[in-house]
C-alpha cells in the first residue's frame, strides 16, 4: 500500500510527543484542543464562504446569468466576504414580545449541532478530528440538536410565520431523520462497524457504492433525498418558503443571529454531502480500478483530503442542481413522500443489505 504517503498520523503524533517533551501532557492536550478548535471554526467559515460563492455561481449558470462579477476582480471573488462583513456590522434587533432567552439561544443550538457534526468528518487518513468507535451514532445524535434550535427559534419569535415555519421544519426533519438513520444503518451493516475511520479504510479495495451494488445504490439515492430535506434545501425548503412565509423560522432574526442560521444551512449541506462521501464514495480513498495498476498508482498520489473535498463538492453540486431545478413541495406531499415511500423503501433496502451481507453477496 502506497497510501501512507499522505498519512497525517505520524506527523500529528510527532507534534504531540514533542509538545509533551516541553510541557505536562494535560497542558499539551489542552493546547492541541484549542488549536484544533480554532482550525475547525476557521474551516467552517471558509467552507461556508466557498459554498455560498459556489451556490451563487452554480445557480447563475442554471439561470442563464453570470452571477457575482464586480467585487474583487472579474469573478466576483470578494462578493461573499463582503457580504459576510456586511452581516457582521448589522444590528441584532431585540424583539419586544419575544421570549428573549430562547430567542437568543436558538441560533447557537443550530450552529452547535452543525459544528459538532462537522468535526466528525474524516478529512484524510489520520486526519479525523473526533474519533470514536461509535462515530456514526454520535453524528446521528448531535445532528438532531439542530431541529431543537429551529423549533425554539420559531416558538420564541412570537410570529405566526416563524411558528408555521418551525412546525413544518420540525415535522419534516424528524420524519426524514428516520430515512437517514436507516440508510446509515444499511451501510453500517455492510461495513460491520460504526467507526467512521474504519468504514473509510474498509473501502480501500472498492467504494461501498460499488461493493454494495443494488442495496447500496438505493440507499445512496434515498440518503441524498432525505439529506436534502435534512439540510432544509429546495425542493424541501418549505420551512423557510420565501413565497409563503417570507423567511419561515428565521423571519425575525437579524445580523449575526441570522448569519448563524445561514451559515448552518450551508454547512449542513456540506455535512450531508460529506457523510454521503464517507459512507458511499469511499471518503478520502482514491478511485481504484481493478487491473489498472498504473492508473491506481497515479490516483494514489492525489492526497486524501483532495479526494474527500472533490467527492463532497461533487455531491454538493448535485444537490444544488436539484435545488435550482425543482419547484417546492407542499408539506403534506413532503410527509407523504417520507412515510409512504422513502421510509418503507429504506427498510426494504436495509433488509436486502442484511441478506446480501449474510450470504456474502457484497464484494
Amino acid at each position, binding site marked *: 500500500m502506497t497510501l501512507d504517503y499522505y498519512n497525517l498520523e505520524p506527523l500529528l503524533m510527532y507534534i504531540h510527543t514533542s509538545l509533551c517533551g516541553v510541557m505536562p501532557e494535560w497542558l499539551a492536550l489542552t493546547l492541541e484542543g484549542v488549536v484544533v478548535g480554532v482550525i475547525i471554526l476557521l474551516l467552517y467559515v471558509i467552507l461556508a464562504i466557498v459554498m455560498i460563492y459556489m451556490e451563487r455561481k452554480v445557480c447563475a449558470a*442554471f439561470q442563464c446569468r453570470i452571477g457575482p462579477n464586480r467585487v474583487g476582480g472579474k469573478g466576483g471573488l470578494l462578493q461573499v466576504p463582503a457580504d459576510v462583513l456586511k452581516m457582521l456590522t448589522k444590528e441584532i434587533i431585540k424583539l419586544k414580545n419575544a421570549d428573549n432567552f430562547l430567542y437568543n439561544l436558538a441560533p447557537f443550538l443550530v450552529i452547535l449541532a452543525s459544528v459538532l457534526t462537522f468535526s466528525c468528518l474524516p478529512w484524510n487518513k489520520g486526519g479525523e478530528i473526533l474519533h470514536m468507535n461509535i462515530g456514526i451514532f454520535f453524528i446521528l445524535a448531535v445532528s438532531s440538536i439542530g431541529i431543537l434550535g429551529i423549533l425554539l427559534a420559531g416558538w420564541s419569535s412570537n410570529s405566526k410565520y416563524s411558528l408555521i415555519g418551525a412546525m413544518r421544519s420540525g415535522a419534516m426533519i424528524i420524519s426524514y431523520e428516520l430515512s437517514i438513520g436507516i440508510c446509515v444503518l444499511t451501510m453500517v451493516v455492510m461495513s460491520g462497524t460504526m467507526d467512521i475511520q474504519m468504514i473509510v479504510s474498509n473501502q480501500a479495495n472498492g467504494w461501498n457504492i460499488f461493493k454494495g451494488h443494488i442495496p447500496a445504490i438505493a440507499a445512496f439515492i434515498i440518503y441524498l433525498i432525505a439529506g436534502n430535506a435534512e439540510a432544509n434545501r429546495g425542493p424541501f425548503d418549505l420551512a423557510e*418558503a420565501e413565497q409563503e412565509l417570507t423567511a419561515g423560522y428565521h423571519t425575525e432574526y437579524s445580523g449575526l443571529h441570522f448569519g448563524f442560521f445561514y451559515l448552518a444551512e450551508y454547512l449542513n449541506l456540506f455535512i450531508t454531502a460529506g457523510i454521503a462521501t464517507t459512507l458511499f464514495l469511499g471518503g478520502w480513498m482514491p478511485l481504484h480500478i481493478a487491473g489498472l495498476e498504473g492508473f491506481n498508482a497515479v490516483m494514489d498520489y492525489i492526497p486524501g483530503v483532495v479526494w474527500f473535498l472533490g467527492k463532497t463538492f461533487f455531491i454538493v453540486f448535485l444537490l444544488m442542481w436539484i435545488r435550482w431545478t*425543482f419547484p417546492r413541495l407542499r*408539506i403534506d406531499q413532503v410527509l407523504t413522500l417520507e412515510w409512504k415511500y422513502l421510509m418503507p423503501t429504506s427498510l426494504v433496502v436495509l433488509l436486502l443489505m442484511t441478506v446480501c451481507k449474510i450470504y456474502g453477496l457484497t464484494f
Partner: protein
Amino acid sequence: MELKDKIKAIIPQAVFSETGELVVTLLPDDFRRVAETLRHDKEEPMDYLRDIVGMDWGDALGALYYLESTVTYRRITLKTSTADREQPFLPSVCDLWKTAEIKEREVYDFFGIRFLNNPDMRRIYLREDWKGYPLRKDYDMDSNPLDLDNEVNSDTTEEYYLNSDGTIKGHENTVFDRDAFVVNIGPQHPSTHGVLRMRVSLQGETICKVDPILGYIHRGIEKLNEGLTYPQTLAFTDRLDYLSAHQNRHALCMCIEKAAGIEISERAQYIRTIMDELQRIDSHLLFYSCLVMDMGGLTPFFYGFREREMILDIFEGTTGGRLIQNYNMIGGVQADLHPDFQKKVKAFIKHLRSVIKDYHDIFTGNVIATTRLKGVGVLSREDVISLGATGGTGRASGWANDVRKHHPYALYDKVDFREITYTEGDSFARYMVRMDEIMESCKIIEQLIDNIPEGEYRVKTKAIIKLPEGVFSSSVETSRGEFCVVLESHGDKYPYRLHYRSTGLPLVHAMDTACRGTKIADLIAIGGTLDFVIPDIDR
C-alpha cells in the same frame, strides 16, 4: 327585441333607452323581480353579471347592472336608483350572482348605497373610518385629511334586511371568530403580486377562510377622471393593469371613438391588434415566471423574463415605453411603427416557438409541479360564471368567455384563432390555458404582421373632444379577462362618470372559494394561477 318583450311582460312600466345600448330603467322593487326572472330564464339565463356601476345623478343614487348570457352572449343593462340620499337602500342581488357580494361593497364604499341582504357591507377600498362617500357629486374633498393612525380591521360586518313590516333592520355578521388562528398575508409579501392583503384563518396548515383586504394602492382614478378631459383620462388606463396596459387603453379609446363617432384607419386597427397580442404574450410570460417562482422554482423564472425582455424591446422601439406605453390615442395610435418592427416581431415569434419547449420541459412535466397544481383550487363552471371570473380563469373551467370571439372588436373577426378552454377548472388548467394562449397569440400576430396596410396611423380629431349625452361602454379581452369601460357623458368635455370593470376584483373574490380546504402553499399557487394584478383591482 325579445329581451324587451320579456321584461315588458313582467314590468309593463319599464323604461327602455331610445338610442345606443339597451338600458332598462326600473324601480328598485321591480328591478329585483326582473333580475330574478332574467337570471333564471330557461333558454337564455343572464347568468353572468359583468359589472355593477354605481352612479350619482344628483337627484338620485343608483347603479347600472351589466348582464350577459353565457348561452347566447347577448347583453343587457339594467338601471335602478333611489332618491333617498340620506339612507339609500337598494336590494342586493348577491344571491343571484355571487360576484355582487364584492361589487356591491364597492358601490357602497363610493356612493354609500347599502344593499339589503348583502351579508358583508364593509368598506372595500377606503379606510373603515373614512368619512363620506367620495364618488358622490356633493362630496367634500377636504373632509378626510391624511390620517396616519393605524387602521384597525373590525372582525364584524353589518347586514341590512327588510322587516316584514317594511322597516329596515341590521344585524352583525362575524368575519373571523375570536379564537380563529388568523394569519395576515400582505400587503408587503413576496408573492401577493403587489400590495394585496389577505387575512387567512387556518386550521393547522389548512385554510378555513380567506378575506381579501383591498385598497392599498387605491388612487381614486375614477374620481380623478371626472375632472379630466377625454384625452387626459387615457393616461390612467395604462396604470390600472400594467400588464394589459395597451389593451386597457384600447378599450377606453374604442369607447370614446364609438361615442364621438370617430372612424379609425385600417392601419391603426392592425397596429392595435398586434400590440394587444404582444401585450398578451408579455403578460402570460410574466405569469409563467411568477407562478413558477411562487412555487419555489427560481430557474424557470429567468426563462420567462428573458423572452419578455425581447417584447419590451419591441415595444420600446415603437412606443418609447416598456411597461407603460401610452400608445393608443383617440383616433388611432401615437406614432407610426418603427421600421424594424415587423422584422423584430417575426424574429421574436420564431425564437419563442423554439424555446417554449424548454418552458414545458422544466416545469409543465415536472412531477412536483403537476402534483401541486392538478386537482388543486378547483372552480366549477357555475362558480366562475357566478363569480364573474373571466379570462383564463373562466376558460380553464369550461366557460367560453373570450370577448375577442363573442363580441369581436378591432380585427379579431378577421383572424383565425382558437379559444382555449379546459374543463378541469384546477390550477393546472388555468396554467395550461395561458401557456396555450401564448401560441394562439403568436398565430394571430403571424396572420397580421405581413399585411399591415399603408395609410395614416391616426385620424385627425378635434382639439377638444365633446361626447354626446348618454351611457357608452366597450369591452376588450385583456391578458386576464374582460375589461370594460363604462362612460356616462352629459355632453361636456369631461366625463360625468368613467368606470372601469376591474378584471382582477372577481379573481381576488374567487380566492375564498378556490382556497378553502387547501394548504397555505396552495394559496400562493392558486393566487399565482388566478393571475391578478393589484393596481387594476384597487384603481
